[in-house]
């Protein structure tokens, strides 16, 4: 049985699929975030050192993960669009950017709220915080560049080059903790060592991460639908959709 992979690379056939997927992933995101927050607030034990303040970890860490992951996904779609000259890839990249910027901002915001009770300061110029701030600027730069270019094809390609150049920043974020040893604690979750936190805390964080992931998919697909309608407004299928028959 052969699957027609390329069927969905055209906006016309992807549009209805994106609508269905967005609905399902939106529902999954609601469930996962609900379960994750329940675990975070009611099941996970109070931390011995930080008291209740640590519970912001269930938003902060998944948001920080997503902020970096979404930049990679965005760069992946952008690179795909640049290499194969497909229309939909560029649309996906520009649809992901605002969600990525949102999670970056959320990670910085919650981190600052967490830093005040535990470190006694809203902000420190530590490597990880600084890199996250730079990531936010990279998202803004990507969106500003695309907004400044009128021709959508050129906007896609120029954004793709910028996103791929910016990917160089992602390893710097990850390895900065090792390079500059400062106030920020080292990563407490790693793939090679046993986690140093209670199992329920880890479960809550992972469930929240999935919730944010599903939300990102749903939000990006909804935004991609809007971009498709805007860019393909001269085409037959958009006119049909406008009349309510598609």
């Amino acid at each position, binding site marked *: 049985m052969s699957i027609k992979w390329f069927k969905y690379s055209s906006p016309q056939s992807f549009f209805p699929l994106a609508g269905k997927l967005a609905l399902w992933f939106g529902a999954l995101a609601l469930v996962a975030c609900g379960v994750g927050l329940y675990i975070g607030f009611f099941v996970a034990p109070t931390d011995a050192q930080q008291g209740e303040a640590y519970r912001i970890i269930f938003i902060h860490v998944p948001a920080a993960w997503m902020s970096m992951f979404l930049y990679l996904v965005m760069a992946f779609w952008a690179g795909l669009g*640049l290499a194969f000259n497909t229309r939909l890839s560029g649309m996906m990249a520009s649809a992901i950017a605002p969600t990525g910027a949102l999670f970056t901002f959320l990670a910085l915001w919650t981190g600052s709220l967490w830093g005040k009770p535990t470190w006694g300061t809203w902000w420190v110029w530590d490597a990880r915080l*600084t890199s996250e701030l*730079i990531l936010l*600027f*990279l998202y*803004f*730069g990507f969106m*500003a*560049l695309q907004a*400044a*270019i009128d021709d959508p094809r*050129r906007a896609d*390609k*120029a954004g793709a*080059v*910028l996103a*791929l*150049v*910016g990917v*160089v*920043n992602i390893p*710097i974020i990850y390895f900065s903790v090792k390079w500059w040893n400062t106030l920020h604690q080292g990563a407490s979750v790693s793939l090679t060592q046993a986690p140093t936190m209670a199992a329920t805390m880890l479960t809550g964080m992972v469930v929240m991460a999935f919730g944010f992931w599903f939300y990102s998919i749903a939000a990006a697909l909804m935004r991609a639908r809007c971009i498709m309608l805007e860019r393909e407004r001269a085409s037959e299928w958009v006119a049909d959709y406008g009349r309510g028959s598609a």
Partner: protein
Amino acid sequence: MLGVLRTMVCRDLLLAMRRRAEVANVLLFFIIVASLFPLGVGPEANLLRSIAPGVIWVAALLASLLGLGRMFAADYADGTLEQMLLGATPLGMTVAAKVFAHWVISGLPLVLISPVLALQFDLPQELLGVLALSLALGTPVLSLIGAIGAALTLGLRGGGALLSLLVLPLYVPVLIIGAGAAESAASSLGGQAQLLLLGGLLVFAAAFAPWAAAVALRISVE
């Protein structure tokens, strides 16, 4: 091919010499920005000594940003750039030659004047060399990264502010490492690690940035 590149560098330098004021403006901007900091934070010698490498590096960063818009703009306006795109020389090499010429015009003067500025901040004399060396290794990286931004924003409305938004976040590692060189030399750790890292960044940027800028130029001109 080397002949073509030499011609390209000589042409850009000659063009810059015909408009000496523009070259001087960047240098004057660098000096003025660096001189504003003592006026802003106060003339205490200890404070100035500790912020000197950072201030001089930030000023160099902003100054190198000033000239970036001009890297391709004139050639784009009079059609020379299209000829370069069509020419037989690989575009990446052409871009590398242009970046080198741009650095000689806008980066090298900053490196040469930086010891004098450092004296204004009462930086110990043994650190002057480290600071100048870090700038000599770092400013070409700024020109190389800036070339990508300049190519992407070619011919766009409000190019200057947009260019800063694109390029400044990418400058941050260079700034951190570059300013760190003189600082760690001051704390008797020695600045070798930072200088080696800067050298690594320079090699990395020299290998990939002209190529990325060439891709960006094709996108902007097509």
